[in-house]
């Protein structure tokens, strides 16, 4: 049987399906373990135009590198205060924002995965979701990771959110602009 055709989310995705889900730092009334961070920025299309009224979803392991999913051999130890999944929408200026935890690293087939967050983008004009992955490291150029290694070397740095500040109230604030087309276009994966 062939997979059903994907279609655009359109302009009228209910706000009630989004609001509140951009915060992953609490689940079941429990605070998530690990370092709480924010990731915010803009969704931009060709010409740097803001892409308003669009939906971003994220999926990531908890601060200990465990996925809240039965396929993860450690999932019984997953943080009960972390949902792992979140959803946000862009405003009229194309701004989005998530609050989450810094994802943990984990070992897979003997190699350590670079901490990362998976992202999918749904918008008018996007008939099939766009998927990418954001990576976190102090020195991006030295990272080895089986997914990141597939990205052309020249554009790998585009998948690392920028830490806005390392001290004070802004510690743990990351900035990332998704550029759907043109210029410093964000690398997206075949889906």
């Amino acid at each position, binding site marked *: 049987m062939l*997979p059903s055709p994907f279609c655009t989310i359109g302009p009228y995705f*209910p706000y009630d*399906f989004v609001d509140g889900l951009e915060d992953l730092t609490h689940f079941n009334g429990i605070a998530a373990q690990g370092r709480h961070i924010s990731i915010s920025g803009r969704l931009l299309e060709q010409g740097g135009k803001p892409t308003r009224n669009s939906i971003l979803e994220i999926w990531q392991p908890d601060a200990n590198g465990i996925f809240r999913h039965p396929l993860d051999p450690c999932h019984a130890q997953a943080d009960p205060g972390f949902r792992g999944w979140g959803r946000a929408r862009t405003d009229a200026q194309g701004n989005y924002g998530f609050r989450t935890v810094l994802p943990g690293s984990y070992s*897979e087939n003997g190699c350590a995965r670079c901490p990362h967050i*998976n992202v999918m983008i749904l918008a*008018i004009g996007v*008939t099939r979701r766009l998927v990418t992955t954001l990576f976190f490291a102090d020195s991006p150029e030295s990272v080895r990771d089986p997914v990141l290694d597939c990205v052309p070397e020249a554009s790998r740095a585009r998948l690392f959110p920028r830490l806005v500040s390392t001290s004070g109230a802004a510690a743990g604030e990351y900035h990332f602009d998704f550029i759907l*087309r043109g210029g410093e276009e964000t690398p997206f*994966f075949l889906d």
Partner: protein
Amino acid sequence: MDYQPYDDKTQLDRQIERYPLSFTRNPSAPLIQRPLTLTERTGPVGLERELGAGPLDLSRACVEGPSRPRAVGQLISVFGRVTDEDGSPIPNAIVELWQANSAGRYIHEMDKTDSPLDPNFTGQGRLLTGPEGEFQFYSVKPGAYPVLESGWWWRPPHIHFSIFGVSWMDRYVTQIFFPGEPLNETDLLLNAVHERDARNRLIFEYDSTSMGAVNAISYRRDFVLRGHRQTPALE
């Protein structure tokens, strides 16, 4: 599970003539092939309590009360099954639904048409598939509405579906149309699937065998989410 990239021939085009945003919002660089690791093979599951997915009757206002009057419009019963590519049912899948009311109006600040809202219709809700991947809900048939900025494009009646399967790879979003609607012939999205069999999988089938409720027209749509069970390697 094994996940192959979607076959372009059975999907909508990414870029569609006369649909300008499809040209400015899709990447110019080729999409990058990557291995599928644990992070892609896992995904959001078990969120039905937090997201409030359960039995769904969109034909009545979501506010609880002694009398829950029906929304205006043709009452419909929509049912089907969610499976993977092997036909194995996907139970406990959250299905998010949203649609226009019978006058073609959404409760959304982006809807700038002057069609009336219906106080007894929110047009949104979440349900959970049963043990065999089955689902059913009542609603009213949505109206058509214009894409105002296009100057010509009327969207045919349709219902939006967003389904959470078992992984990040089978997360699925679509729109399902009604059979026999004249506006189906000119819809840019529906006609962006070129193979007729594939296009028909975006259209409900009128179900003449069941009545659902006394006065509800039944429509069926099954969904196939991406994913095959992995076949064991040959010894």
